[in-house]
């Protein structure tokens, strides 16, 4: 790649080193802990599924049963108890799930023969792992079959009706209009549920529940469109919030292709406990990595909360940290859809140049990453015509800097969740602009001492200063002191802290072991 910004390589390397140093103590902590949702995710990989009459999912029932006997028991992991029940009862996974939903307590069975358990577990690991690999192979095959049929960058549209069946209609229409990626927005506050609802759902606020059945329904619908449009349509959901790993597991099993997944989003923007989040994100990312799922990180959130011009460096800092946490979880660069956004005040003089600079900087510092670029939202208003013009420039910058994943801006962003026609207009705008400047990236250069170049250097410098500060203070303390996103999060505060689990000396998780093996993470 030809550089247009001439960023000093040693400074970029230094920033990466800082990220590595910052994350080291966190990684250490992660290795020593699990969480209720990590355990539930493991159970899901083993086959646990379904819910009882009150809607409590089987994986939650199992974990609760273990904890109810003695909280410390979970230090051994939940898998052993579930597999033990399978072995002891001779039930199929399906049959056991039904029984658990009906009230059967896995703790009512004493632990049996270790070898039998391990053998059964190995079988289950193989079964889920090959299902995931099959999904991955299928995706690769389709991407190959429909090569060059997707837009560059990928055009990404959301659906958010709250009703999975209505979502399907809109998603199909969106795909026919030209979307490459469909993201099903989650219902308000699902982040804060410490369980994943079960079955198809038709009621959500501002989005639709992420459930495994909903994943399946949407995947099937999009697979149909793929054949019709001769284009692989990527499906996205959120492995985010209190159930990151479980949703990652569900996505891996149902062939999702992308997942919103950020190492710190839950902490900063959802007030989820920091220890819990770090542990959860690691496990979820290992699953994503295994499944070939591209993560989308949430740097855009820094900009909707704070000023996008002043705080541009927080985006870059977060990208370095997300990258580092990603590598530590076995996620290669090409699965890291690092986020950023076009969120500067549209009245800033030369704002376009600053946006261009920021986007190009991300491109050059993260050359192999499928960068995820978010549209203007904060400064959108009821003036849909002005909004359309802002989206036009956003589309321009995205193509001009070769972004990877392009979220389409909606002209009605400040008014309502997208109407079908809003999406159409968004695709129309993006395809017009991008086709019209197809080779702009290769054709245009920036003046060496110009505004665009200088801005990128400045932001890199600010980022390094910031990372140095975090490194000096330590990650946990930095978050507690409010260095990130201008919010202070106490170490032991936030949601889900009680769900953190020490890994005991006998901690048993063959699924995790398998993941680590597959990802080359075993030391």
């Amino acid at each position, binding site marked *: 790649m030809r550089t247009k910004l001439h960023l000093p390589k040693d400074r970029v390397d230094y920033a990466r080193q800082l990220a590595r140093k910052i994350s080291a103590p966190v990684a250490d902590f992660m290795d020593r802990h699990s969480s209720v949702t990590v355990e539930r995710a493991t159970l899901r990989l083993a086959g646990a599924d379904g819910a009882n009459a009150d809607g409590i999912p089987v994986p939650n029932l199992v974990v609760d049963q273990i904890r109810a006997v003695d909280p410390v028991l979970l230090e051994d992991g939940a898998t052993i108890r579930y597999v033990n029940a399978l072995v002891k009862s001779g039930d199929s996974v399906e049959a056991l799930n039904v029984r658990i939903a009906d009230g059967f307590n896995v703790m009512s069975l004493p632990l049996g023969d270790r070898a039998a358990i391990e053998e059964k577990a190995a079988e289950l690991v193989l079964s889920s792992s090959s299902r995931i690999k099959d999904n991955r192979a299928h995706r690769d095959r389709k991407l190959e079959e429909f090569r060059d049929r997707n837009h560059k960058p990928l055009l990404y549209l959301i659906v958010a009706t709250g009703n999975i069946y209505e979502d399907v209609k809109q998603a199909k229409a969106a795909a026919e209009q030209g979307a490459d990626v469909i993201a099903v927005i989650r219902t308000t506050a699902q982040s804060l549920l410490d369980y994943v609802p079960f079955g198809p759902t038709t009621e959500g606020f501002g989005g639709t529940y992420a459930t495994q059945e909903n994943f399946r329904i949407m995947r099937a619908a999009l697979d149909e469109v793929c054949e019709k449009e001769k284009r692989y349509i990527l499906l996205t959901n959120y492995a985010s919030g209190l159930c990151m790993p479980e949703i990652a597991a569900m996505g891996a099993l149902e062939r999702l292709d992308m997942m919103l997944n950020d190492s710190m989003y839950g902490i900063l923007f959802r007030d989820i406990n920091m220890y819990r989040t770090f542990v959860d994100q690691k496990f979820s990312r290992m699953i994503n990595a295994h499944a070939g799922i591209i993560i989308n990180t949430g740097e855009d959130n820094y900009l909707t909360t704070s000023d996008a011009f002043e705080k541009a460096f927080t985006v870059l800092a977060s990208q370095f940290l997300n990258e580092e946490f990603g590598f530590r979880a076995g996620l290669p660069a090409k699965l890291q859809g690092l986020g950023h956004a076009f969120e500067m005040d549209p009245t800033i003089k030369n704002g376009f140049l600053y946006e261009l600079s920021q986007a190009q900087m991300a491109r050059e510092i993260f050359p192999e990453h499928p960068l995820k670029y978010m549209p203007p939202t904060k400064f959108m208003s*009821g003036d849909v015509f002005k909004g359309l013009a802002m989206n036009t420039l956003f589309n321009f910058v995205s193509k001009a800097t070769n972004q990877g994943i392009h979220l389409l801006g909606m002209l*009605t962003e400040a008014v309502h969740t997208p109407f079908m026609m809003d999406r159409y207009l968004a695709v129309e705008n993006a395809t017009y602009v991008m086709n019209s400047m197809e080779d702009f990236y290769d054709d245009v250069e920036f003046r060496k001492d110009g505004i665009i170049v200088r801005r990128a250097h400045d932001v890199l410098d600010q980022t390094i200063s910031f990372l140095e500060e975090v490194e000096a203070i330590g990650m946990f303390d930095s978050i507690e002191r409010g260095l990130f996103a201008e919010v202070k999060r106490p170490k032991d505060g936030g949601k889900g802290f009680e769900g953190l689990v020490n890994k005991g000396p006998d901690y048993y998780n063959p699924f995790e072991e398998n993941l680590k093996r597959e990802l080359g993470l075993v030391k």
Partner: protein
Amino acid sequence: MHVIRPYGDTMDDGKVQLSFTLPVSDGARGREAARKLVLSWGFKDCEVVHSAPLSDEFSFYVAYGKTESSVDYDAMVADQASADASMTMDEVNEYIRREIGRKVVVVGACTGFDAHTVGIDAIMNMKGYNHHYGLERYSDLEAYNLGAQVPNEKLIEFSAKVNADAILVSQVVTQKETHVHNMTEFIELLEAKGLRDRFVCVAGGPRIGNKLAVELGFDVGFGRGTYADDVATFIVKKLAEKKRL
């Protein structure tokens, strides 16, 4: 009966986007006036999501409304020249040879003060438009394109002289209903001269609908996106029909 309503993101939610200007200054009262206006159109619900001053005396509004009105889709009659697919150039030539047996003469012009030639050229010129050849290229048609700003009088005179079968009138400017006046005058002139029945009269232009054209006494009207094929098909079928009578 197939009742349909506008669709935002849920069937029958009736969502519609509107924008307009009011001759009052911008402010909360203007926004309220805008809202009340939208409600006066039978909308059940209206949110004025944006307002801006255009000057001290004018202001601009963007609104989203929710209507309960509906129409019966089954009862809709499409405003178009014909429900049949148009023939290709070769098919038209073939049809002329078979059904009419002589060259068909057409004369076209953009009339009145209207100076927009591109539309009538798209239909008539050799090279045509969007990969559809124009009428001049049709072997069994004789086509005269008089260009733009042609007085109705002159167009009729010329058409009579060359013994035209069809006259093509293009009208692009519609401000202050000039096209209606022009087209009406054209038909009245023809009738006054007792020539109306001699020609198939075809009107066209971006804002011309079939309904309007027929209302004004033409045989047909063609709007935006018309190609020579469509026009030729209509003319030759009409001529064959006339011949049969």
